């Protein structure tokens, strides 16, 4: 985030560096500073990083999700570093904060995913902004208690980096 000082001494955030990707046509954006780095899925699995898939954390409606070019964002939280499976980002843009709008009233009231916190207008396109720390704080784990994709899953390792259908 790009801060500047206001008259009362508080830092006003004027710009946000946003990593933009889309999953099944829904355009999402995350604050690039919240991710330590990005790996391809194979590398993340080889490094035994727990990878949680983005679509499960924000409850996508589609029955089947396709990640065209799966990538993993590494996010540090209290428990260490976890991975978040996303699709290959298409852009990193500086978004002026005055172009960010709050979610409409009804979405704030009824949305399951509190990690979606606003909408940025980027070249007339609506980008849903997701807080990665909030997302990982209330992450959904598989019934077995582990991450969505395990580094020991041979099939996944074979197909990692190619299109992933889940």
């Amino acid at each position, binding site marked *: 985030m790009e801060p500047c000082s206001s008259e009362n001494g508080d830092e006003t955030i004027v710009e946000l560096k946003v990593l933009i990707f889309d999953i099944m*046509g*829904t*355009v999402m954006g995350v604050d690039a500073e919240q991710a330590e780095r990005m790996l391809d899925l194979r590398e993340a699995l080889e490094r035994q990083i727990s990878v949680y898939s983005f*679509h499960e954390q*924000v*409850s*996508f*409606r589609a029955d089947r999700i396709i990640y065209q070019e799966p990538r993993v964002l590494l996010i540090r939280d209290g428990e260490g570093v976890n991975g978040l499976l996303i699709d290959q980002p298409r852009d990193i843009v500086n978004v002026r904060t005055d172009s960010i*709008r*709050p*979610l*409409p*009233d*009804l*979405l704030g*009231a*009824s*949305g*399951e*995913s509190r990690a*979606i916190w606003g*909408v940025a*207008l980027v070249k*007339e396109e*609506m980008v*849903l902004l997701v807080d990665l720390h909030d997302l990982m704080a209330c992450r959904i784990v598989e019934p077995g208690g582990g991450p969505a994709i395990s580094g020991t899953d041979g099939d996944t390792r074979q197909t990692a980096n190619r299109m992933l259908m889940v």
Partner: protein
Amino acid sequence: MKAEKKSARILAQARKRRDEELASQGDEERVQLVVFTLLDDYYACPGTEIREILHPTKIASVPGTPDIILGIINVKGDIESVLSAHKLLGLQDQQPTPRSRIMIAESHGVRSGILVDSVTDVAEFPASSIHPPISTLDSSIKDLVTGEMSYEQRTVTLLSVAKILGKLVA
């Protein structure tokens, strides 16, 4: 004395009738309604609760929201949610067509778009033409209906935006 022409007498009677109608309307309370369709049925909302009527535009879906919320739209830089009127009333879903419209509704500070199949009229109607809703109304929509009236020989179900939005915010 020359007899008044028949046609002139008929016209004078017609004018008198029209004047009487206008005079009686002037005394009567009128309500502005936005009349719209869903599938084959007519519905209406109070005009005071509809801020704008838009042509269909790209609706961006938002993960984690109930099915009734189709997504969000950009209205001149403001982001508005869009509800499916079909899902709201338990009707069969319908893909938007060029005749579809998004009504931007607002009540008690809560605003949302409502996607309908078409908007047929925005007009004032005598308040006396609105009757209480029928008691056999489906329980799923009973809470949202405030009355019914007749329009072009069709029954129009009146919906309350306040009740619709209130139900979703609660």
